[in-house]
């Protein structure tokens, strides 16, 4: 019979996890995984997963991508022991998915709400906490913290059956975290959520991964979700693996170069066009002013409404990560925290941070020159600046001709004033 972890066990576990993350065996491994669904007469009808080889390493956010019916949920259900493979091998934490001993370390958010409709939010979380045999005081503390995290503290007395889909999803996420899992499996986590909920979940995934070293397996067909948070992705189609690799590597388009500058006059743009044409005999494909994303605009509006304390029977904005989730991070938490804060400050784009009308900052000419002249030295900076980057797999900077950029940087003195 499994028991809740003691603090000593947690500390020992998290310490061991950090030290051996690179050498540690994969959290999830499938070899030649195949799942065939049969009809009533046991005739094979649908090959949902076909010869899938996957390896999810400790501490990474792994995305399973694919259109509807591509085998994402089937793969997840096999990993959870809800389905059995027709062929191939599966190991989660080095054991069979049906092994009850590993369930203590897994949190699962299914693609729909499978919660008891007659329980309220607090009872729901308490019930799932009991299944992990968490001690009562610990359970109560976690329930309250999770309710705060998902913004349902004020609605905790309502039955889950009365919740909107998004609210039920939030409670589903909270129950997936009640045991402070090492592996978090999220099946279409943002389905039915409003943009704020979506942003929170993405933020949460990043936080859990960065601050607490949680391994996250995320399945979605919403590409923006995956792109924003996943370190590695696997694209499935027809049950087969179509692409597998580092997200940034897969998404980078090496045949194009993108330059983002402050607002330029049409004459300047023309000069740039001519420089590019003269130097490399290439065309500028598009020049446009980027607009704010609707998601960011929406979040800002709702946040303002919350600050005005406008009443709502729906979910509130939610709080930060519950304290207990950090319990397994152990004594290395400060180091990770400092790294995260450094990454945050470095990742914040300068134009967004500056209020409109304020003096524009000087172009970081030295930095760009350094990047151009010594491409191999870009690695540490890039690793810190981009939250999607993993330390184990640094992405090489996109190739660029230094002379072109130098020519662009040699701006006339009058433009610096504007």
């Amino acid at each position: 019979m499994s028991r809740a972890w003691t603090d000593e066990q947690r500390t020992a576990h998290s310490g061991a996890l950090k030290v051996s993350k690179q050498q540690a065996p994969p959290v999830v491994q499938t070899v030649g995984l195949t799942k065939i669904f049969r009809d009533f007469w046991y005739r094979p009808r649908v090959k949902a997963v076909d010869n899938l080889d996957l390896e999810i390493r400790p501490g990474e956010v792994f995305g399973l991508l694919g259109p509807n019916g591509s085998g994402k949920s089937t793969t997840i259900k096999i990993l959870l022991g809800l389905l059995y493979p027709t062929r191939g091998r599966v190991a989660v934490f080095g054991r069979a998915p049906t092994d009850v001993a590993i369930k203590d370390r897994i949190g699962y958010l299914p693609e729909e709400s499978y919660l008891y409709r007659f329980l309220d939010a607090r009872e729901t979380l308490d019930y799932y906490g009991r299944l992990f045999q968490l001690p009562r005081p610990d359970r109560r503390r976690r329930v309250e913290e999770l309710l705060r995290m998902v913004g349902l503290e004020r609605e905790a007395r309502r039955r889950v059956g009365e919740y909107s889909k998004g609210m039920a999803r939030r409670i589903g996420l909270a129950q997936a975290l009640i045991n402070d899992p090492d592996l978090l499996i999220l099946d279409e986590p943002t389905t039915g959520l409003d943009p704020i909920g979506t942003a929170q979940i993405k933020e949460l995934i990043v936080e859990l991964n960065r601050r607490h070293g949680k391994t996250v397996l995320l399945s979605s067909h919403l590409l923006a979700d995956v792109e924003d948070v996943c370190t590695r992705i696997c694209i499935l189609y027809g049950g087969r693996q179509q692409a597998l690799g580092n997200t940034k590597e897969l998404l980078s388009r090496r045949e194009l170069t993108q330059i983002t500058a402050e607002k330029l006059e049409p004459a300047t743009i023309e000069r740039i066009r001519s420089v590019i044409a003269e130097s490399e005999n290439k065309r500028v494909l598009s020049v446009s002013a980027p607009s704010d994303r609707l998601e960011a605009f929406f979040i800002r509006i709702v946040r303002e409404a919350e600050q005005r304390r406008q009443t709502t029977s729906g979910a509130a904005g939610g709080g930060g990560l519950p304290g207990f989730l950090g319990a397994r991070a152990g004594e290395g938490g400060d180091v990770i925290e400092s790294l995260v804060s450094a990454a945050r400050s470095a990742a914040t784009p300068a134009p967004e941070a500056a209020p409109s009308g304020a003096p524009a900052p000087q172009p970081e000419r030295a930095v760009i020159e350094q990047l151009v002249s010594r491409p191999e030295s870009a690695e540490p900076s890039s690793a810190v600046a981009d939250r999607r980057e993993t330390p184990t797999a640094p992405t090489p900077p996109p190739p660029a001709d230094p002379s072109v950029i130098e020519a662009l940087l040699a701006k006339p003195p009058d433009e610096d004033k504007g």
Partner: protein
Amino acid sequence: MKIALVFIIVLLVILPALAFTVRGDGVTLKSRIQMFLSFSLSLMQFFLSLLTIFLACSSLSHEVREKFIHLIAVKPIPRWQFLTGKWLGIMVLDAALLVGCGGMIYGFARYLKTLPPVNELDAYGVEQEVFTARAGVKLKPPEAEIAAGVEAAIRQLQQEGRLPVNPDPELEQRTREENRRRLQTEYLTVPPAGGVRVYYFRDLLVNRESDQVLYIRYRGAPGQVPQDEIWHTQWLVGDPELRTRVVLLEQKDPAGRYSTVMVPAACVSEDGTLRVAIRNLDGYAALAFTGDEGGMELLYQLGGFGWNFVRALALTYCRLVFLAALGLLMSSFLSFPVACMASLLVFFIGIASGFLTEAIENTAPLGESPALGPLNLTLRMLATGIRWVVPNLSACDPVPAIVDGRAVGLIWLGNTVVQLVVPAFVLGVLASVIFTKRELAQVIV
């Protein structure tokens, strides 16, 4: 849970209604109380059985159908524990309902007892034949004597040349069976015109020093009936040779009904044997205590009504234990409607098991009708197989015993535990194995 609520409400409405509407034979208080006990206990037993099956089948299949199980099965809970939890939940609810409904029936029966009886005999019947716990000993032919009689008959037939010395086994078997039946019938029949037959009830647990009363309950088989439809008999109860108390009674009992002769416990001998000699005073009709509608039985008090009632409820609970395990087993691999139908089928076969046994015994023996041979063989094998697999629920039905004020003994209770609770455990283990092996997110395309 809505099903449970409907059943509970129906029981809560019907049980009190029965107490005030049932009239029995319209005359005696005894028959009114007996009919109330019979209807209410049967109804409670039937409703709780159905409720248990519905709950067991629906609770598990509902979890699977609505996919609630997806969030349970990924938690560190072995599936057998989940099933055990389901079973325990149903059993706790059953226990509560059984105590509630049983208490209500007991209370109403006690209330009915306070109503005025028709006469002293009625009052005596209520006290001594309903609100009591009596042991019953049925009159059975002495097997040793019958077997000796059969051998003697065979020898005589062979001496007379009506049966070969070395007959073929089938003929010999048939001849033996015929003679056995003949001798049994003869033993249980009192010849007419002053014919006498002596019967013995043995191994009685009676304190012969007490003022306890013994009841001899009997009814003649309907084959032969006196012209005036009244049996005229003389009874000599007790053994003068063993110096027990001897009672001589003259009875005039209506044919076709059970009649009771009451004798003191002092008539029983020291070795616990009661001798009953009956003289048939009818000139033409033989009084036969045979068949389903005839027979003789000795009843004597063993304990009180209260504890007997509790043991009867325990017997019912054993049935519910079995049905809950059965429903969970069925729903561990079947959907709700199919699991429900399968469980109900087993339930009704179990209830009709006594009838099924009798039907098998009464089917034509193999070889008697060659045209029906294969069909007969198949049906026999099927029926015998079902009888082996499905426990006899009718044998665990305490209602007739409670209505007649008979004791629900601990041996009976023990046998029921062996017959129902042990198989329930086996069913539970089987359900756990199946449920553990089952793909909970399976899709049949």
